[in-house]
């Protein structure tokens, strides 16, 4: 055990995977000598040499090459620098990575991991704060994972590398260095596809993931100070989504608020609301609320705070469900 932040926990996971399995290969822009723009691959090039590969600036090339490597039996982990730079690779992900198992009737599979930092909150330049996870979750054939804490990040990344199918692994930029916690040493896994109940409660359920989980937690603190009992769920895996945990909680509390940073329309908050009304309608005491970013380009530093949902907005939405 040691106290690690999320970036360090991911670094530890990659180190463990590279040491355990010769088939694991890291590739991406600047992942080698500099250790990646967020230093997640720091030091791995020195320790694992030729299996940590600096590539040209070519996202489609990185993912396409990783796809070929995976089919040929390696376990590639590709890094894209920001979610806003993943779009040049989107064609590879949607047209090829997600379909190969289906297209070849299991003859070929592509067990690769595509690591991408996502979300805003650090006042970065245009394209550096995207939260477009829904378009990946909308794509069949890939799994989409988004950890919120260091310990989960390590365990989920090790699961993703071992997974027989492709995984898009989204890392919350705002959390990389924001929190530290005890992270177990060595190899362990956190299962893909299982949400975590962060705290149990009886009056209202907040469902979130990634960087927004902390804001949802802050909102829960405020509500609890007012005597509201909040159940907080961290989805951890966005696709396939753990419907059972969400629906079970909705049946218990009767009130659900989905909290996401992404654009509102067709977001995962929309999906959460749909699942709850399909499977828990008669337990609901109020309409499901969505607290989201807006259907606008993510604003730059000066106005970004008007976009990312604040704990205050989450509290207001939760209160609306309680008033109903």
């Amino acid at each position: 055990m040691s106290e690690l932040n999320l970036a360090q926990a991911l670094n530890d996971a990659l180190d463990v995977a590279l040491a355990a399995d010769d088939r694991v290969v890291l590739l991406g822009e600047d992942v080698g000598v500099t250790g990646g723009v967020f230093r997640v691959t720091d030091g791995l090039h020195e320790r694992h040499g030729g299996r940590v590969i600096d590539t040209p600036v070519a996202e489609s090339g990185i993912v396409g090459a990783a796809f070929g490597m995976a089919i040929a039996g390696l376990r590639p982990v590709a890094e894209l620098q920001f979610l806003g730079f993943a779009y040049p690779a989107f064609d590879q992900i949607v047209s090829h990575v997600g379909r190969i198992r289906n297209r070849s009737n299991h003859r070929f599979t592509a067990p690769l991991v595509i690591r991408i930092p996502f979300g805003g909150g650090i006042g970065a330049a245009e394209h550096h704060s995207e939260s477009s996870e829904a378009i990946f979750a909308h794509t069949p054939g890939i799994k989409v994972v988004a950890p919120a804490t260091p310990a989960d990040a390590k365990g989920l990344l090790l699961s993703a590398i071992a997974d027989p199918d492709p995984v898009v692994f989204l890392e919350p930029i705002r959390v990389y260095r924001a929190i530290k916690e005890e992270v177990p040493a060595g190899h362990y896994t956190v299962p893909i596809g299982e949400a975590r109940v962060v705290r149990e409660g009886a009056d209202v359920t907040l469902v979130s993931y990634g960087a927004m989980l902390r804001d949802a937690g802050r909102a829960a603190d405020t509500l609890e100070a007012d005597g509201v009992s909040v159940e907080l769920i961290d989805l951890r895996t966005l696709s396939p989504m753990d419907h059972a945990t969400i629906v079970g909680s909705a049946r218990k509390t009767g009130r659900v608020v989905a909290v996401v940073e992404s654009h509102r329309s067709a977001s995962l908050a929309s999906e959460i609301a749909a699942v709850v009304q399909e499977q828990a309608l008669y337990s609901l005491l109020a309409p499901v609320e969505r607290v989201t970013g807006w259907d606008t380009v993510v604003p730059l530093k000066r106005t970004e705070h008007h976009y990312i949902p604040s704990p205050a907005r989450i509290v207001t939405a939760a209160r609306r469900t309680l008033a109903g």
Partner: protein
Amino acid sequence: MEVLRILDVDGSLIGDSPVDLDEARRLFAAMVTARVYDRKGSALQRQGRLATYAQFEGQEAAQIGSVAALRPDDWLVGTYRDAAAMWMHGYPWEALLLGRMGDERGGAPPAGVNVLPPSITVGGHMIHAVGLGWAERMKGSDRIALTLFGDGATSEGDFHEAMNFAAVYSTPTVFVCQNNGWAISMSRGRQTASETIAQKADAYGMAGVLVDGNDIFAVLTAARTAVQRARAGEGPTLIEALTYRIGPHTTTDDAGRYRSDEDVDAWRKKDPIDRLRAHLRSAGGWDEAWEGAIEQSASTEIEAAVAQAEGLEPFPADAMFDRMYAKPPGSLEAQRRLQGDEPG
């Protein structure tokens, strides 16, 4: 491929100057002004007044020289590192600063300034220059489009699509690759295995030129030829300007991790401003007081732009909804109202 060079490293002429002395002095003043801006940009970032800043020190000749070949109504499409070029083509300092301060209003140059906002994504913008020039030709105008990009950008698929379109349709496009040696931590040698970037032009069927990018006379000469060809309907050109990024990739990068100080020092000796100064001095067109005055007035002008950018009224909280569509759809208006969930 031979490297076009006119102004030698010591400032002596080894070819025909493309400009007279007055014009050379104007180019010098522009490079000095750009450097004043660049140094201020870094300083402002260190003070927390700008978000991440991408320095262009060392690349002044490549940027100013290529843009000096344009007519004011031609199009320019550049990147986050091309502030000098954008300013030279009419993009105001305060708009450039606003962008770096994280204010969307920086994306709008004044009417009549045909410069697109700087491209942050690498590679995607080159094809826009193809479309712009192509459209001008369809409209019967003789405007051309020039696009700037780095050596790293030539690795992206979009570069190849842009080159191919331009050559196939013979569009009036000038591609200027500022080969500054690095794409963040990756050297040029790891972006392409071809000996030069300029030679790639061959494969697409267009003209390719290799120039000393720290020699403003060479850059201007190559750009003028390319612009004339484009305007005359003779098709696109790829210019590779050999230069160097003296600073780190951006203010968040630690260049010490991947390159040596000796390398940087060797390139400092080929500085584009020093080179033109040496030439002007021997031609009797330079003295210290004159350069001091340029620096002084640049500093004053840029300080005023900083004050203006910092003094701007804050964007209203809901302004983001107004910029997405000509008329915000009902769904966005509903979101504007939801924003009121935020107290105060």
